[in-house]
């Protein structure tokens, strides 16, 4: 626990130094920030959008916008949290714009039912780590909060502040999301 806390503090100090250098026009600092978070952010965008090409565009746009804040960027929380929030917000905007037929659930439904049987299908989902397919069946708002909390270590309070909603809403969406995930998995097993 203590080691974990020290590690977190080290990361925050490193982030603050990177931001300090970035604000003074260091290209190396910007490059380092990108290298540090790019994979995580792309993973988040893919989970939210279910489209790698769109996800790459989102991460690209977020970094270009971030680079444009040089000299005036103020970090209030963690850098990872800030960038994750930017990606989530940008992904939500993209999600609203694109055609409903391209959204996740339909695609995943088809993919799931191609297997031999429900049990094999469920085992396959678990074993192959196809969490993406399961998450895609959740409403976007629930998926977003589950991923930000469990994959990007953001606290409910941080998420609420970033998304501009109450902490109660965040917690209830999270709870409903987990319940729905559980029921999806149970339904797959009991079919």
């Amino acid at each position: 626990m203590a080691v974990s806390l020290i590690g977190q503090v080290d990361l925050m100090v490193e982030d603050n130094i990177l931001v300090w250098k970035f604000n003074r026009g260091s290209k190396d600092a910007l490059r380092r920030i990108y290298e540090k978070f790019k994979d995580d952010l792309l993973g988040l965008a893919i989970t939210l959008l279910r489209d790698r090409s769109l996800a790459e565009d989102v991460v690209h746009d977020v970094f270009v916008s971030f680079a444009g804040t040089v000299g005036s960027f103020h970090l209030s929380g963690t850098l990872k949290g800030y960038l994750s929030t930017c990606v989530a917000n940008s992904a939500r905007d993209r999600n609203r714009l694109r055609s409903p037929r391209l959204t996740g659930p339909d695609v995943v439904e088809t993919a799931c039912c191609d297997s031999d049987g429900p049990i094999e299908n469920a085992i396959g989902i678990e074993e192959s780590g196809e969490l993406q397919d399961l998450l895609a069946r959740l409403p976007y708002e629930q998926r977003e909060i589950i991923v930000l909390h469990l994959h990007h270590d953001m606290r409910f309070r941080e998420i609420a502040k970033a998304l501009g909603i109450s902490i109660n809403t965040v917690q209830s969406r999270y709870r409903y999301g987990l319940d729905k995930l559980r029921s999806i998995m149970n339904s797959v097993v009991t079919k």
Partner: protein
Amino acid sequence: MRPKENMEEFVKIRKPDVTTSREMDKRTMDDSLAAMEQTMRAKSADHKPSTARIITPSRMIKLTAAAAVVIAGISFYVHQGPGEQNDTIIVAEALESPSEIMTMKSLKIAYHRGGVEAIENQCEKALKILGPQPASISTAELFNGSQS
């Protein structure tokens, strides 16, 4: 039925393991660096220093420049302000006779440098050179007589 904790653990350990492509890295970094440079250029243009700031970058130089301006101002005042009457006297002293002192040209110069007061001073100077004269004597005789 999975308990909540198990469900959270299930989601947590299945974090997607994705990596960005080289093309994406290049595109993103190129565009980000361009955006960064554009912002820095815009900011430096906004904060472009004025000519005075370029000349006087340090506090010491600013103080020195201010002191030089004050000294120049004082010396200008000393030479141009109270010195006007002195100039009139100098003009009067440079001329040899009262008739020269009282010429229209010398009076005009005196007026320009010191006004009516300077003309009066110049006249007094001329009368001092002439010395005491009888009250009946005319102005023309006074100056003609001094010349003779």
